[in-house]
């Protein structure tokens, strides 16, 4: 399988802050790759370097077979970016935004218009085609923003936190679109703060921590590293008393409940128990805490 994106020892510093501290990534062509991490982990900087917006201080990045530092124009011809802030023209209509982008991508007038109609249809925006973007809802704007990246079939698509700020329904819709892209063979490189999003979409996930890849693998591999579900114990006021990570098996769950029996906190009036999926915090705590976190362990809260 060939490689769409690879980086070696990528470094970037803004002032006294080291944002990337030697980033190594390898993204197979035709896959969905998610870069997972909290705010400030270096996700956007990584995207900015890969899309030629920012120069790395050190290291090499190759996108679609071209070095981003040496051949930025070649890279630009083969990528599209949908960034965090909706990069749309508020004054123009949906159609006009798409036609403009088509023209700038080398389509003829008629071809750009046909493509605009096609994309509006595909993103369920036909009814809003002749409305200015200023009147669009957040979800519609994101869909159009993504459509703008698809006016030509680029082999590699970058999505920087594509669903941040969207409601559940719009998020689901956007996920469906992203899934359909991979069926067409597009490589998708996305960043997200949400484990669920990475889980739903990505073939491979890299967890970014302080400018380095702290862990990489499929969603299942990462979950296995942090154990399965988390058993939570909360008091009558809803405050968290105990968190017990489990390995996700029935046996592991039973073991966790057994431990609850021995905990004095569970004896109090109104105490509630619940099971939840691991959150990004859990992945993070586990991965950044190192090897000892891979075994289920009692995390005492406060």
């Amino acid at each position, binding site marked *: 399988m*060939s490689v*769409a994106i690879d980086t070696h020892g990528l470094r970037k510093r803004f002032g006294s802050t080291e944002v990337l501290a030697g980033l190594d990534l390898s993204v197979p*062509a*035709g896959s969905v790759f998610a870069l997972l991490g909290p705010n400030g982990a270096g996700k956007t900087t990584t995207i900015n370097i890969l*899309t*030629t*917006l*920012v*120069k790395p201080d050190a290291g090499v990045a190759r996108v*679609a*077979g*071209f070095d981003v530092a040496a051949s*930025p*124009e*070649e890279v*630009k*011809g*083969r*990528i*599209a*970016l949908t*960034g*965090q*802030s*909706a*990069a*749309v*023209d*508020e*004054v*123009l209509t949906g159609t*006009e935004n798409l036609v*403009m*982008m088509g*023209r*700038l*991508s*080398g*389509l003829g007038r008629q071809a750009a218009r046909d493509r605009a109609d096609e994309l509006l249809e595909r993103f369920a925006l036909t009814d809003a085609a002749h409305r*200015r973007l200023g009147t669009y809802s957040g979800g519609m704007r994101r869909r159009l923003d993504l459509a*703008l990246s698809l006016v*030509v*079939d*680029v*082999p590699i698509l970058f999505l920087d936190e594509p669903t941040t700020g969207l409601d559940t329904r719009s998020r689901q819709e956007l996920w469906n679109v992203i899934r359909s892209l991979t069926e*067409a*063979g597009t490589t998708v490189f996305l960043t997200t703060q949400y484990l669920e999003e990475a889980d739903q979409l990505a073939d491979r996930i890299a967890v970014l921590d302080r400018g380095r890849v702290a862990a990489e693998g499929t969603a299942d591999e990462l979950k296995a590293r942090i154990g399965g579900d988390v058993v939570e114990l909360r008091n009558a006021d809803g405050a968290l008393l105990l968190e017990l990570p489990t390995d996700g098996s029935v046996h592991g769950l039973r073991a966790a409940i057994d431990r609850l029996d021995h905990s004095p906190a569970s004896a109090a009036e109104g105490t509630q128990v619940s099971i939840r999926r691991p959150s990004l915090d859990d992945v993070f705590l586990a991965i950044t805490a190192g090897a000892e976190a891979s075994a289920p362990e009692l995390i005492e809260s406060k």
Partner: protein
Amino acid sequence: MTTLIAPPRPAVPGPAAPARARLGAFTAESTFIGRSFRHSVRDVEALLMAIMLPTMLMLMFTFIFGNAIDPSGGYVDYVVPGIILLCAGFGASSTAISVSRDMTTGIIDRFRTMPVRSGAVLTGHVVASLARNLVATGVVIVVALLVGFRPDATVLGWLAAFGLVALYILTITYLFAAIGLAASSPEAASGFGFILLFLPYVSSAFVPVETMPEWLQWVAEYQPITPIIETIRGFLMDTPVDDTVWWALGWCLAILLVAIVWGGLLFRRKAGRR
């Protein structure tokens, strides 16, 4: 089964042909100019202002101040060039806001990740401003003629006046574009631009320099607007312009050059690869 299955598209283009075709010579420029024209036409408030302001100013200076300044009724002939420049400055100032908005909303980053000369965005705003303000100039002249403006210009004089007005608009538009690049937000851009709009008042646009206090005379005499005004007035009224025409051209070209260089540096800093 004889179902036809479309062959899957090659998953990996590798160093194959780019998906975005190379653009024709002026495709980016004409696309961005079209965009800026649409912006101009849709900003109803600014468009109304561009037509209302010259009309109001023309009427105000002719019927309210005019007779006090020059009871013989010839003030309208004196004031036309000043109002043209005042309106041009006002109309061009929105360029600062448009440029700043493009630079701060993230749309510039989309253009920068495409094989397009991203500076063409600025070209679009400048050309639209030029067109917008030439229309405003036309409105000033039509209103002026209606209220008694009687120029003595020859055809050559009209052409020369038109050329100088266009050069002035281009210059001040570039200056506002650079201000838009320097400003941290569209609001800040609008604030900075405001200062420039007062320059015509401290010139020979509305009253002769000799009527000002001595210290102000010095400022009014040597600031760039005065020779430009005097030259346009000379062309329109067919009076000799002497060497003020060279001062007018010199000031315009010098400021244009500074604005282009300054704007270029700012653009590279803000929209270059960081």
